[in-house]
């Protein structure tokens, strides 16, 4: 049976909490996270998939929330930057970001943190090339990327020390 959707009530699981929302089908996941759920950690940079600042994890894989329809995320697990720390305890990736001072204006930071988390999950000891490849879709207009490279290496070390 074909389902025609204009406005639909959907269940979204964001950071392990389930929300029931009425969304229009043209609303992107980014629109819903920011406007309906108030999760403004996910940023809108370009809105067309070029900057990576709207990156979230969908079923554990990084995707661009600005190019994903919210209605198509129903019953899928979404993680945003707000869900990374637990009870105020930062993850090793976030700790490394702070320690290495890889933040200036902070606009690209949520996307960078989530993409790095994904990278370190797949590759606990990434090379410089691996980092450049994985974070290639994330634009930073402040840091010049050196600090960001340092932070991923440092996060990898913290992760290894923790385990």
């Amino acid at each position, binding site marked *: 049976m074909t*389902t025609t959707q*204009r406005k639909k009530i959907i269940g979204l699981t964001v950071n392990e909490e389930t929300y029931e929302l009425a969304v229009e089908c043209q609303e*992107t996941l980014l629109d819903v996270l920011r406007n309906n759920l108030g999760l403004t950690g996910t940023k809108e940079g370009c809105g*067309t998939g070029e900057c990576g600042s709207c990156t979230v994890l969908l079923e554990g894989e990084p*995707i661009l929330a600005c190019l994903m*329809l919210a209605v198509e995320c129903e019953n899928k697990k979404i993680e945003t930057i707000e869900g990374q720390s637990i009870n105020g305890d930062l993850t090793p990736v976030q700790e490394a970001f702070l320690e290495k001072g890889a933040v200036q204006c902070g606009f690209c930071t949520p996307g960078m943190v989530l993409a790095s988390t994904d990278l370190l999950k797949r590759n606990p000891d990434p090379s410089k090339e691996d980092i450049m490849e994985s974070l290639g879709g994330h634009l930073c207009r402040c840091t010049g990327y050196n600090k960001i490279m340092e932070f991923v290496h440092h996060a990898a070390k913290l992760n290894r020390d923790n385990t």
Partner: protein
Amino acid sequence: MYLPKFTLESPRSIEEAVSLLGSGEQTKLLSGGTDLFPRMKYKLCSPGVLISLKGLPSFPPQIDEERKLIIDANISLTAITLSPEILEKAPLLALAAQKVATREIRNMGTLGGNICQETRCLYLNQTHTFQFTEPCLKRGGKECYFAPKGKKCWATFMSDIAPTLFCLNASVIVAGLDGEQQIKIEEIYTNDSLKPLSLKPDQIITKIIVPKTQSPSGNGFAKFTVRKTIEFAIVNVGVFLETEKDLKTCKKARIAVGAVSEGPQRALEAEDWLAGKSLSKENINKVSQKAASSLKIIPHHGYSKKYLTECLKIQSKQALNDAVEGLADQSNRGR
């Protein structure tokens, strides 16, 4: 930036999707959305109905009894790079998929979507506010700004994957109101920037078929960009070399080039020249020159024809060298 309003249809079968697609002109297919949504946000198209292909039954890449590789058109680009079947039977496809955009976009984008993407142009892919007072030819106006007073659209076709499917002699299975048909990948491109695909309004690409290859083979793919990642190619080249058993003599070459014209192109003259010759450095140099000089090259995104021709020579050589190096590795492993 918000998307314009539309209605979303989520068919559960190809037949449903085809009947929905055939029901009106204001419909478009939604697969990964990474090409369509930016164009909708730039108001380059405003379909009233989107037909999502995400709910269709999917299947992992398969090798059939005739040793052909059958790939679901809805497979994500990341899944292409990880599939053991594709890595075994069509590693060239995985090489190209790995070079597309970024990890996030590869997680979302699909094979079918990549080969059916729209043509791009510096004047076109932006909001109208940044364009001229009148829309350009492809946007519905009367003039191509790239070639002032031009009545032809000069947008270029940027897919990284389509040239590799040309190299692999692939076909696509197309479903439509008239049923399914298998057509060669070359036939789906029109070489017309205004309408780059020859598919009818009711047709959907459902599968990609890569035939079995007979000889030992080498694969090479080169993509030239300024920033190495998240960028469309300045030029891309796919190379597939079938060799004699010595792995050093070319039996048949397939060289395809993308991002420099209205559609992917085969470098037929260069391919014919290399067939039967040794894969020596000298011959690779010569064939790279021939490939660059025999193809149609449109200046695009600020790069001149002369610059693109030089890039094409270098990238062809790179892809050919990669293919030859792969063959040398096979030879070493065989010893």
